[in-house]
């Protein structure tokens, strides 16, 4: 029998297939289905501090607008005074999920203020999260903001959060970093127990009929695996923090590749959103079958086996691919 177990952030997981932050954890019953389907751990959907602030200000705006402007209508909406504003609803839900499922539950947090990050991280821990994942979801559109400043902020943030929590901390990163290994190293040194590669941003599109910018959610596909695969391979063994691979994990093959690159876990959501919870046991069975067929004893055995450090040609992860392509083009008749 092959051993699928792995460790991630110091947590012992029964397998490396983890449900990444997605709407699937918004309902207790769907979180339970993930558990029943056999995932190794569950990352909760993200708590967005900005959204909490926005919802709060928006509610206040509309409850207040137009009030005391007219003798007949002193207000236009009833103020029930009973709103689940703030993180309470999220934390209650996290707590309920934790009590319902058998696998570790990781809280996911996206903050905007220093105070918000630390406060909410602590609250998640108190609500029962086995670990916290920081979701660094930020588009650096300001031309006056330097990469150094932004990275410094994040490093400081990791350090601050680590100082207020005792559970492990993972950081989910954007791929758009000039010198990723250096940044990863700094995060690791600041206390990050794990790095999740990578965050997937919603990309705006243009509607040419209406000349408008539109936003729509697109699910990932296996082709997207290559970007994190490269970087996990490169980082493996070079930083203390565990690596988790996400974006483009759809099949058992994707999981196996991720492990070989050096990931401790793979995270997936698009595949489950598209094809249902049943994909988890399928993938796990296929991983097991592949391992059996190829006589692998355990996941741990293959982890990092094709990382940059482990392959014969480490340069393959750096510029060799490009060179090879150029030469193959030149060799065309």
């Amino acid at each position, binding site marked *: 029998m092959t051993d699928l177990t792995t460790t991630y952030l110091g947590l012992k997981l029964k397998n490396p297939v983890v449900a990444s932050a997605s709407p699937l954890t918004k309902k207790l019953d769907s979180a339970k289905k993930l558990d029943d389907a056999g995932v190794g751990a569950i990352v909760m959907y993200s708590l967005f501090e900005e959204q*909490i*602030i926005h*919802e*709060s*200000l*928006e*509610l*206040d*705006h*509309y*409850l*207040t*607008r*137009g*009030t*005391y*402007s*007219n*003798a*007949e*209508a*002193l*207000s*236009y*909406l*009833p103020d*029930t*005074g*009973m*709103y*689940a*504003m*703030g993180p309470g*609803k999220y934390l209650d839900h996290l707590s309920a999920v934790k009590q319902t499922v058998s696998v570790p539950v990781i809280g996911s947090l996206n903050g905007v203020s220093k105070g918000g990050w630390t406060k909410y991280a602590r609250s998640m821990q108190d609500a029962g999260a086995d670990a916290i994942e920081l979701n660094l979801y930020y588009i650096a559109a300001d031309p006056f903001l330097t990469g150094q400043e932004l990275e410094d902020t994040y490093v400081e943030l990791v350090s601050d959060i680590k100082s207020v929590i005792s559970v492990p901390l993972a950081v989910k990163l954007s791929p758009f970093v000039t010198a990723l290994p250096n940044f990863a190293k700094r995060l690791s040194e600041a206390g990050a127990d794990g790095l999740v590669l990578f965050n997937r941003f919603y990309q705006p599109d243009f509607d040419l009929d209406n*000349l*408008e910018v539109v936003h729509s959610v697109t699910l990932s596909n296996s082709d997207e695996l290559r970007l994190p695969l490269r970087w996990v391979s490169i980082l493996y063994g070079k930083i203390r923090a565990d690596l988790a691979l996400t974006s483009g994990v759809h099949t058992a093959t994707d999981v196996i590749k991720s492990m070989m690159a050096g990931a401790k876990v793979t995270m997936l959501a698009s595949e489950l959103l598209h094809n249902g919870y049943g994909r988890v046991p399928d993938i796990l069975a296929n991983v097991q079958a592949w391992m059996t067929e190829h006589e692998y004893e355990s996941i741990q055995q293959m982890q990092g086996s094709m990382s940059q450090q482990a392959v014969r040609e480490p340069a393959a992860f750096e510029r060799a691919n490009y060179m090879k392509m150029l030469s193959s083009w030149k060799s065309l008749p």
Partner: protein
Amino acid sequence: MSKKQKITIDGNEAAASVAYRVSEVIAIYPITPSSTMGEFSDEWASKGKPNIWGMAPHVIEMQSEGGAAGSVHGALQTGSLTTTFTASQGLLLMIPNMYKIAGELTSTVFHIAARAIAAQGLSIYGDHQDVMSARQTGWAMIGSGGVQEVHDLATIAHAATLKARIPFLHFFDGFRTSHEVTKIEPLSDDDLREMIDMETVMAHRSRALSPEHPVLRGTAQNPDVYFQGRETVNPYYAAVPGIVQAEMDKFARLTGRQYKLFEYAGAPDAERVVVIMGSGGETAEETAKALNAAGEKVGVVRVHLYRPFSIEHFADALPASVKALAVLDRTKEPGSSGEPLYMDVVNAIVESGRTGIRIIGGRYGLSSKEFTPAMAKAVFDELKKSQPKNHFTVGIKDDVSFTSLDFDPSYSIELSETVRCVFIGLGADGTVGANKNSIKIIGEETENYAQGFFYYDSKKSGTLTQSHLRFGSKEIKAPYLISNNTANFVACHQFSFLERFDILKFAQPGGVFLLNSLFTKEEVWDNLPVEVQQAIIDKKLKFYNINAYEVAELTGMGSRVNTIMQTCFFAISGVLPREQAIAEIKHSIEKTYGKRGEAVVKQNFEAVDQTLAHLYEVAVPEKATSKLSMRARVPAEAPAFVQKTLAPMIALEGEEVPVSAMPVDGTFPTGTTQWEKRNIALEIPVWEPSLCIQCGKCVFVCPHAVIRHKVYGKDELASAPATFKSMDSKFKEFPGMAYTVQVAPEDCTGCTLCVEACPVKDKTQVGRKAINMAAQPPLRESEAANWDFFYNLPEVDRAAMNPGTIKNSQLLQPLFEFSGACAGCGETPYVKLVSQLFGDRMIVANATGCSSIYGGNLPTTPWAFNKEGRGPAWSNSLFEDNAEFGLGMRLTIDKQTEYAKFLLKQMSADFGTLAEEILSANQADETGIKQQRERVAVLKEKLADRSDAKSRDLLSLVDVLVKKSVWIIGGDGWAYDIGYGGLDHVMASGRNVNILVLDTEVYSNTGGQSSKSTPRAAVAKFAMSGKGMPKKDLGLIAMSYGYVYVAKVAMGANDQQTLKAILEAEAYDGPSLIIAYSHCISHGIDMAKGLDQQKLAVQAGHWPLFRYNPDLIAQNQNPLTLDSKDPSIPLDQYVYNETRYRMLLQSDEARAEMLLKEAQHDIKSRWDYYKQMAAMHYGTGND
């Protein structure tokens, strides 16, 4: 004795707090100014707040006050302790049930925020006309004069009714008392338990209808016994005064506050006494006190128990020394020999055998007309005269019947210990809310007494608000506004008001003036109008300035300067030590906004913290040097009536209008909003001709008719102002002409709907459209000149084009313009469109509601007339009868048409072919109507030359021969609820009327109460946990008649369908019903996105577009055409853009999800049903 803890609340809360706690069933219907009593009850019930027996009462909103009274009657008959709240027309609708309830000796209390009755005009303000209209119903009537009395006498009324078995009407002055915020001593549940005798409660229950001990109540009685039956109740009425006094005495033992049926105050040997009820009593009493201190001998009898009127108790209250009595009635009974209280007093004096007393009666305070110490003094002074004026009025200048008493407005009895503050704010800036908070802080966190009263103009956008605050160490007995020259502190929160209104008139010499302006310390003085500068100098005011907008911007507060100005007030006034004041403000912010989330609290805290650094005192120069002046009330060219009667109202000086300046029958000229240049927009749209495609969509959607387009001869441009823009016309009907889109800069509200509707995008910069917003001030003068030029360009010949396209329809002159509706209103674009299409031949019956307020609330009306002098003739009857009112108009037109034709036929030989042409005229289109107008004009000329009776008869109604269009307009509160019975009957009548329902899915005008149009899952007042039932399908009901034209439209989704439906509806020779989606401020949306929401409502299937045209049946076609496609987006994509839905997600997510699911199901089943209807085969079997 109860604890001496104090609370600061208004009169409505004071009444509801008691009524709620001693009731089991509360059936209500919203009506100003009583609505908040019901709303408080609903809110408390939804939170499970218990009554004194541990259960929350059942609160139900009914379809009308008549319905509420019926339910109350039923609940009483089955033994519940039941109450309701109402006012004005609402009370009138309850009268039939009130007779029954009294006749059956049933214990209940109705709480009334007493209000004027609609006569020559509607008024939402306070007087006793409504309660006096119910004095004959057999109810006991008990009146309160202040907020503490409301709280106390409400309790006494509930206790007494159970003892007496006579129902009680507990009333207090609408607005003056119902909305005055004052510090009072609250009654605890234990106090109430002490007062309500459980034996009487059980006796009430024992009389209930029950099959366990069946009885019959409500028989029909015959001449033999009805009379005797009516006389059986006399002993019960005889006992009431004693019972009430006993309850008052019991209450005094409990609380220390002693009331009497008739309370006398003043000199024990007074010779002159005023008798009065309600809040005016306090003013009269305080005035008497001041006069007695000056050596006079006067007194006041305040009436609490008005019915049954106890002559014995009244006589006992009156000092033996009295020689002259003045009885003041806050009501008018035209044609009577005296107003009711006066008549009662005259009778009491006669029956009690008192002699040697001269009695005069007078009217005061109608429709919240101020009743001040100056007026009270005038009454006492009048009693000194050997021949005092009887049936006088006080508070107005009656230069017609000369009833009014003169008074000296400068007479004041204000206490020097009291601090008086007047704040002038903009509706949107939060001034009133902040002042309510301040009053609570002062009242509850200091030993001071505190009073707040708030006044609003009648606009729904750019509203001016007044907050009148008093506080001080002595009890405040001043139920009147702070008068001129007496305010210690005056604040103006909106700089532009300084050029329109005399705000510093309130300030007393040496007082403080706080201004919010965009100017710096150095700039502000020179930017004041010279009149304001002079007033500051003359009154030696300390002048402070702050740029609160800058602080608001810094702290993310947007346009809300409430917290900032509140901080300034506390900082300057010194009512509390500064540190404590800031701590209290922050505490109040936490209390008010804490439930809405930490971010809100934080933002407000920041605003408080940033304020003081931006506040500074301005050094006042010795001379006024400003080059700016206050603006004329109205332009010099305004007509005489506008100058004389409307201009003072526009300038908030309506008090100065004498009786002679008012129309005798409530008839006013139209087209008057054009004289009220409000300049409320910070930004206005600017036209970009290089991009414009002349589609007219911007004009179509404009709620305020401030953006228009015209085609005109190019020669007109010769005299155009330099900045006037023009381009070549692209209209195929008008080749070779010039074209302009023009904005009225001083009338625009800046709502941006026009920009949203513009379909054009600049190819090099897609964010730029053919209409873009730009700051108003730099454009104001030049665009005003352009607007004047544009306005005077000739209108298009209506007959020269087909109005069936959007762009063509918008060439027609709007005869509904510049309304004071909310910026971006979703209703008014429909009203304006109808006025464009049919305005020159249309009569409007308008239900009470938003549309009657922005349409007909003084001072001005947006209903207008064209250059020929034709335009919509408009009237509002009531809320409940609007369909019937409009039908009556139709009946007149039909009958007069028939009669005119009858006469013309008889005289046809005299007029040759003209008569035949008129009689057989086809007026199906504008050309036909134009030709008929020309014929009728010729006929009128001929008839004018004839002196025979028939000719004169025909001349008096010949205009009816030009086709008229009857429009019945109102909101969903009217159409779905209170007026539904009438609406149904009018549709069933088959008569040619056009019914336009401006469906906001909520009672907008009274502040967002649920109607039967409110959709499932939406939150509204009286549906705080989200409406659980689906929206009533009025369209489907109307279609079931088969001969009613029905259309459901949403111009934001399909403007062409809207236009088509309105044209078809008017053309249909029978009843037509148009249900128009009207986005509304009460939806909790960004009003600029109202049109987008309409589109989403249609796409989600919530608002299916259709037309049901019965004319098609005759052509063997299915009359129902579905104009929208299958629902294409899930409902949540539409509803969760709106706070009314989203707030349920935040308060009860599980229920929100359940209701959303059900609402989604509603959509599917209704759409499936419509599709089947639209697919049905019509016609014979062979076709």
